[in-house]
């Protein structure tokens, strides 16, 4: 037993824990649970953990994956409860296992979005949103590592559906998880740039599933 993977949730108040802080939080949770987390060798050892798909600040997820290494065998069935008991509110571990697949096979991501319109959301509005995201191309300005540039986010949106409910429009989308990574926030940025009349007053996202290239659930 060496390389292991965790499936965990990050919801509620925990969504404000940043990626870096989450790494530290996880590391401390392993220490609190007295689990044999492995550290790198050297003068400044760091915990051997990595998030497969870092979650943007403020978004919820029920399908986070984290790889880590251990230096001794441990009881995988007991681990979720052991860790959940010592994690902050909103982070709960669902399972721990020896992964069969590499992280790079992860391709698609299902997100649920809540677009909130303070003046109410109509079915007509929902339909306009659906039309917008099914355009042939959605070219937006975005900041990348190489500076500002134009890019078409449309190919990164695989599925999209909407439904109006009270003052909210509920979205269900499958977007590209990596290469390219589509941060769901860009769905709102696109509206801001191309269809300002559709911009919601607030938008919240939650990851609900991760898939491989064939749309099989990724574990």
């Amino acid at each position, binding site marked *: 037993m060496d390389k292991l993977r965790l499936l965990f949730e990050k919801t509620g108040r925990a969504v*404000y824990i940043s990626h870096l*802080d989450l790494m530290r939080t996880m*590391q401390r949770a392993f220490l609190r649970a007295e689990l044999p987390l492995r550290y790198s060798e050297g003068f400044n050892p760091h915990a051997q953990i990595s998030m497969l798909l870092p979650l943007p*600040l*403020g978004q919820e997820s029920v399908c986070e994956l984290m790889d880590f290494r251990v230096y001794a065998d441990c009881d995988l069935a007991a681990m979720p409860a052991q860790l959940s008991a010592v994690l902050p509110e909103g982070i709960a571990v669902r399972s721990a296992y020896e992964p069969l697949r590499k992280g790079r096979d992860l391709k698609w991501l299902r997100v649920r979005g809540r677009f909130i319109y303070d003046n109410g959301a109509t079915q007509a509005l929902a339909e306009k949103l659906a039309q917008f995201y099914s355009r042939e191309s959605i070219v937006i300005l975005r900041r990348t590592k190489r500076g500002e540039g134009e890019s078409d986010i449309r190919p990164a949106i695989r599925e999209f559906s909407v439904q109006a409910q009270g003052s909210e429009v509920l979205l269900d989308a499958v977007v590209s998880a990596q290469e390219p990574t589509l941060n769901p926030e860009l769905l709102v940025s696109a509206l801001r740039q191309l269809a300002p009349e559709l911009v919601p007053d607030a938008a919240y996202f939650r990851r609900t599933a991760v898939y491989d290239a064939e749309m099989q659930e990724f574990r």
Partner: protein
Amino acid sequence: MDERLQRILPRVQKPARYVGGEYNQIIKDKAEVRLRMAFCFPDTYEIGMSNLGMRILYGCLNDLPGVWCERVFAPWGDMEDEMRREGIPLWALESGDPVSDFDVVAFSLGYEMAYTNVLNMLDLSGIPLRSADRPGLRPLVFAGGTSCCNPEPLADFMDLMVLGEGEEIDAELLKLYQTALDEDWSKQQFLLEAAKLGGVYVPSLYEPVYDENGLLIEMRALPGAPETVTKRIISDFDSSYFPVEPIVPSTEIVHDRVTLELFRGCIRGCRFCQAGYVYRPVRSRSAEKLVQQGVESVKNTGYQQISLSSLSSSDYRGLPDLCDGLLDYGEARGISLALPSLRADNFSMDIMQRIQKVRRSGLTFAPEAGSQRLRDAINKNVCEADLLESCRVAFAGGWNGVKLYFMLGLPTETDEDIVAIAELATKVLHCWKQHASNKSRGVRITVSTSCFVPKPHTPFQWEAQVSMEEYKRRVRLLRETMTAKAITYNWHDPETSYLEAALSRGDRRVGNAIEAAWRSGAKMDSWSEFFSFERWMQAFESCGLDPAFYATRERTQDEVLPWSRVDMGVRADVLWQERERSRAATITPDCREKCSACGAACLLKGGKCDG
């Protein structure tokens, strides 16, 4: 969570500090809670969560049945702007409920520069600032902490102030308050009863009287007011409460580690040091207990650093046992030990080397004054030979950086004393040249100076602070004298020290200036991005007050001091005697060598200090 808040959070810096939910936070069932207390720390989350006093009281008060104590911190500027724009009142982290829902709103006052944050937090909570404008019993607004040893500057804003250590008195106070609520007392009735508890200063029971020149001539005790209010301490510190399950913030804070408290008080009696005087007498915790608390805390938090906190760690008798015990547990687990506030005189090579095995941290000494004469005058019992010996050990052991802290403007300081700072730094440099085990990396010697602030309840409480111009002249003199390239000189600006001097020895009128400053936008005054000296000067002026009257004026022995109703343990005549000895550069032996009968022993059950 409030949806309005949820909308704001993505727009502010470091949102994690506003939401709570951290590991080990205390959540209670509201149905079983009778008294809710909002424990307010008037600074950022990162500073407040690093405060050991706050952690102790949080745990201690939440141990009381029926009481739920939650945390509140001052929002950063961006968050405050958003809150005011959206009309969201200040909330407590655990429940997310607005502070105005709480029965008790308590502030921890550790430094004067946080005073405007107190007013700002009350305002953000929608609570009237002045005690007189809060006629009802709810909410009770009070403060505790070191700054309360001069309660007067915030007297008009607080219903009461708690003097000394809070563990016992806070509990007594909350119990009395619960009775008052149950029996529907008036606020006045409650305050009169609270004043009888001992350690509770009720400002409205004292009336300052000034003469025609504006000099305080009496702190008049009104009916029901105790003649003096004596601070409270924990007599049996060894077995007192310590939080071994502290909250682990989910975001980085200033002191992100386990902190153990070795002892309270200090045996030394440095004459400039307020903490050294107001925390007397010294009481320590056994090494065995500390090791146990350290191990438990590490297990409960996952922290990998333990910091040993006290005013002077080298004076802790059990230090070798403590370090051994913690390192025995920690070495194999990669847990490092930080030992701040080591003295240069009895610096233990053995301990330093044991710690070094795990992690090497920078070396810091605070000789405070450059010459032996001035060190004697301030009773800082460090001699040059010891300091250089400590440096020799450190350099030979591979350290290549030393930080030296000094104060300029100490009473009796002359230009010779200032030049002596440069000479001392040069000797440290020579010491490195002679003894460094590894010269290839060079050496960094940093000299820092700050402007001395005379504080209440110290032998220097009557002294004038040097003017800002004079401080700057002394800085120039030192800068011109200190020429070696390997020595870096940093000096603090005198503006903050000047204001601190005016606030710390202020009387009740200064409260008006604090309010005026806050009304014109002052907050977060210990942060340079917010501090405006001009704003403060205008605030004083608008109230017809001169900060120089408080900061740079020498008091006579018979002047009535604003804190004269407060007894922090050490008798005023002893303070004056120490001031006289200072003038003669006569040192006073430490408590262990020879008790000078300062009065603090009377605070202890049994009446005897153990040193």
